[in-house]
């Protein structure tokens, strides 16, 4: 089965979700393109890849409003 969902999770600290965000497990800070440090206070965070989130650097599911061809690969 495709979609990358069936593999064991042990090595998956960073997961690029097709059409969606990048999941990051166990991070303490994320530094954005401007050099701003964003503290992480949850076990997994979703980092925006479509760059249209209203809460950058975090995903807010805005990618769902994009047509398939404009979503992140």
């Amino acid at each position, binding site marked *: *089965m*495709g*979609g*990358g*969902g*069936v593999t*064991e*999770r042990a090595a998956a600290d960073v*997961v690029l*979700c*097709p*059409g*969606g*965000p990048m*999941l990051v497990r166990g991070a303490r800070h994320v530094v954005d393109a401007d050099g701003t440090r964003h503290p992480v*206070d*949850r*076990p*997994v*965070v*979703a980092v925006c890849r479509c760059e249209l989130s*209203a*809460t950058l650097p*975090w*995903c*807010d*599911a*805005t990618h*769902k*409003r994009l047509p398939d061809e404009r979503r992140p690969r």
Partner: protein
Amino acid sequence: MHIPSPRGKLSACVAEVLRQQQVGPIDASFAESDEDAALSLWILHELSYSGFADVDDGLEWDIGLVTLRLELEAALEAQLRDRFPGPPEPSDDLVAAFFGYVETHDGPSLAGHVHTDGTDEQVLELLRWRSVYHLKETDPSAFVLARLPRPARAALAELLYDEYGAGRPERLHSHLFAEAMRSVGLDPERGYVDDVPLEVLELNNAVTMFGLHRRLRGAAMGHLAAFECTSSVPSRRLVRGLQRLGFPPPVIDYYEEHVLADAVHEQVAVRDIVSPLVTEDPRQLEDVFFGAFTCLDQEARVARVLLDRWGVAA
């Protein structure tokens, strides 16, 4: 919490049994209406959560009450399966198929109305109705944890850890909702079950039934994943509406938390819970979509009732 006010003979009898005022046999045929049956089941399910003040905790497993619970659940499950049109066409990419299924079953948007046109009174009504679920947010899924195969179980534990505050009691999502209620003068201890219609009772009964029966674990996880997939975007619109109306920070914080948390949870729920669950046991596929459909269909039913009450075209 106190036992809600009866809505017919069956719920009145259930309340009397819980107060130890009646010991005679009762059965589902006592129900005078769908609402009476749904409230009775909601009351019986509450015995598996926090229970009621002055009700013996042991009644959760009283043989007569469990028998009644199973009768009411069988009728509910039959009704829900009757509404379910069946799973989508088979696909070799379950993750994409699941996201696609949810996107094509989008119902009327309460959040869209609150965003642009909702009033203070409408938001307060929405909070009272939602409180029946949000005050036990995630608890139905927690019942399922021990019943999942290993990869799905690890992923659900990760999701639940976040829902339950990641080690910080003050960040439990159900607690955040209780704080939001208090900030607008609502009383989470009192509860607002008496205020909600059949559709809200039925929505809560379905998710509890899915959680309590190991047989329905696929439906429980499909429901969870569909719920998470339809939360971030509406939560953002609610935040904008709440800001427009000047609601206090705890209410806005609750929904802001769900914009971010559920953008993570939808990915975890679909990729790491539902997908490996079905890979491990392909027979779960149909129930995963049954649970997802039930979530989306019941949310749409509640939205239509509420928008109709508010005089808004759905």
